């Protein structure tokens, strides 16, 4: 229905849009999501007719859109500021667009009455916009736009000016309206919650380019670039290189398991993304230094490539001995040669022994501490626990990572700040993607 093809626009040296192509279907609720300054608003203004692209085309139902003046386009825009006319009453504001079409007075009155009913503002018809609350103003702005029955309704940050409680109501309201009137909605927002909760499909923008167009679930679970993985929702990203079968070989954590969303050559720079709520957390009982109390002979397979880089004598052994294998540990140490892992002077450690390896990691003489029976995953110290929305959000400091690993656990957490924990996840829940994007 709406087809945007190779649209570019720059302002001086700044490229606001870089060959953007999109296709939006009839009746869709579509979102343009991106940080501020990513070009999404420029695209919106181009569609509305307040901005002209340097190159590219836009067609609506096959007809050239760009050739039309803004007042001739079958498109309406709901402004972020609502842009209600302060000198006109609510009813007059809504009637404005219809009067410009020179419709008979009776019809204008009827349609204004209908739409006032739809947005629930019949009682406020004769008020001035200044006399309304934020939520009511937004309804007027919406009514003013949909009363024209446009082919396409553009919404610029529709919920950003509302407080949290009203937002939730308006969100439902917008979806209901969209269903009812059957108009194609395109919403521009920097707020992913807004985009995720409203839209059928989302185009993620970054620096004037479309990074990914997908449905909310796919966008969240299968991001296709670092930007999307990082921008949409909280995420934990690990850098490394791809191994032959869906693993990520890292410098500090050995091989992390994940599922590749695209073909990855072995050795290619790759990125592993795992969501906080996908990470399982187990408390690892700390043992006093110098004692290896963990019983041997547990039924856990040996972990591969779990060491710290050699020469880092200052690093406490407990941090260095991180059994990194997360998934199927069965596929033996041999599958990851030292050069792939990128770990110099690698030392293999058997996790189940929990004892300090006789390699470099134990140079300082400190014995390794080990959670009993934590065969796989990362280890770290809980930095912070916060509880909101029925979920405990934990930050776990893991040696070898600048940023803490985020973990979300349903309900109140039993783990407290300072606790040693082991982290693991199912390989199907971690996404492996190409890093250079």
């Amino acid at each position, binding site marked *: 229905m709406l087809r945007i093809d190779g649209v570019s626009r720059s302002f001086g040296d700044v490229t606001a849009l870089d060959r953007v192509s999109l296709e939006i279907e009839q009746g869709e609720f579509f979102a343009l999501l991106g940080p501020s300054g990513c070009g999404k608003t420029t695209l919106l203004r181009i569609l*509305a*007719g307040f901005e002209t692209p340097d190159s590219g085309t836009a067609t609506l139902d096959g007809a050239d859109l760009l050739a039309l003046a803004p*007042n001739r386009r079958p498109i309406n*825009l709901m*402004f972020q*500021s609502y842009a209600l*006319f302060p000198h006109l009453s609510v009813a007059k504001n809504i009637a404005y*667009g219809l009067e*410009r079409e020179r419709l008979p007075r009776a019809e204008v009155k009827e349609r204004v009455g209908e739409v006032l009913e739809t947005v629930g503002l019949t009682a406020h018809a004769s008020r001035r916009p200044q006399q309304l609350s934020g939520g009511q103003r937004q309804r007027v702005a919406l009514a003013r736009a949909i009363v*024209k029955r446009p082919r396409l309704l553009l919404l610029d940050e529709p919920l950003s000016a509302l407080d949290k409680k009203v937002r939730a109501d308006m969100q439902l309201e917008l979806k209901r309206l969209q269903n009812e009137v059957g108009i194609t909605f395109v919403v521009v927002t920097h707020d992913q919650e807004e985009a995720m909760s409203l839209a059928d499909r989302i185009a993620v923008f970054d620096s004037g380019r479309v990074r990914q167009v997908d449905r909310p679930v796919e966008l969240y679970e299968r991001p296709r670039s670092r930007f999307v993985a990082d921008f949409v929702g909280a995420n934990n990203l690990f850098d490394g290189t791809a191994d032959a079968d869906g693993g990520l070989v890292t410098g500090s954590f050995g091989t992390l398991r994940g599922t590749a969303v695209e073909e990855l050559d072995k050795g290619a720079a790759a990125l592993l993304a795992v969501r906080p709520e996908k990470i399982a957390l187990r408390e690892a009982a700390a043992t006093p230094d110098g004692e290896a109390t963990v019983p041997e002979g547990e039924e856990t397979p040996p972990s591969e490539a779990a060491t710290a880089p050699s020469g880092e004598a200052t690093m406490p052994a407990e941090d260095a001995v991180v059994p990194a294998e997360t998934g199927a540990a069965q596929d033996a140490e041999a599958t990851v040669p030292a050069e792939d892992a990128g770990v110099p002077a690698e030392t293999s450690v058997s996790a189940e022994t929990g004892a300090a390896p006789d390699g470099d990691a134990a140079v300082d003489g400190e014995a390794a501490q080990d959670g009993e029976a934590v065969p796989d995953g990362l280890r770290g110290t809980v930095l912070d626990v916060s509880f909101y929305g029925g979920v405990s959000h934990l930050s776990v400091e893991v040696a070898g990572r600048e940023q803490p690993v985020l973990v979300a656990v349903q309900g109140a957490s039993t783990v407290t700040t300072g606790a040693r924990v082991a982290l693991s996840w199912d390989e199907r829940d971690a996404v492996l993607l190409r890093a250079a994007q």
Partner: protein
Amino acid sequence: MRRPRLLYVPFWATFVFLYLPIVVLVAMSFNAGESAYTFEGFSLKWYGALVEDEQVMTGLVNTLIVAVGSTVLATVLGTLLAVGLARYTRSKLLDALALMPAVLPDLVIAIGLLLFFVMVKQTLGLHSVILSHALFSMAFVAAVVRTRLTGADTSLEEASRDLGAGPLATFLRITLPQLTPGIVAGALLAFTLSLDEFVIAFFTIGAADPTLPIVIYSMIRFGVDPKINALAAILLLVSFTAVIAGQRLTRIGERGSRAQD
């Protein structure tokens, strides 16, 4: 915090300095005696004499014609100028040039206009005074309206276009109502400026019957006639009314636009 009383002394002294001459003038306009300098009792006789003075009455009518004519012209042109400056150019130079006549010495404008009218062989009279007054008051109107436009929200105009209104309908139905308080204030300013303008009128009126300020000037050359006090008091009243009304309107306008935020 209590301020020391002493600080109020210069404050009130300034006000006395500002308004004492005006108070004296108004008081003397009600003087019963012949002298322009000593008050001898209350009377309205000078107001009566004023009405009977044909020269003064002609001057007053001429002044009103010029004031109204130049105000209308200056308001329309000044508003359009302001819209043009605010919406269609980013040039600081044009901005400065447009507002220049407001700060230029009247004498420069007057001599320039006289030369110009003579050069284009334009006959002089009330019409040339109207044009001349419109020229400098236009700059004032433009300045006042421009300030309002800068504060105005362009998204209103975009919303109007978006809802199907052409550029003209948008200007008439959205931009203009937004600007009304500014336009009214500018018009009142133009009116009062023209009312007592002497230099430019003197240069550009030619041989026609003069405007009131010129009449007063020629009367004063033969000594201060108490009639002039009465005349000045009337002019004062008109100016005061206009300025206060203008201020009121601008304030209402500002309050209106603040309420939108």
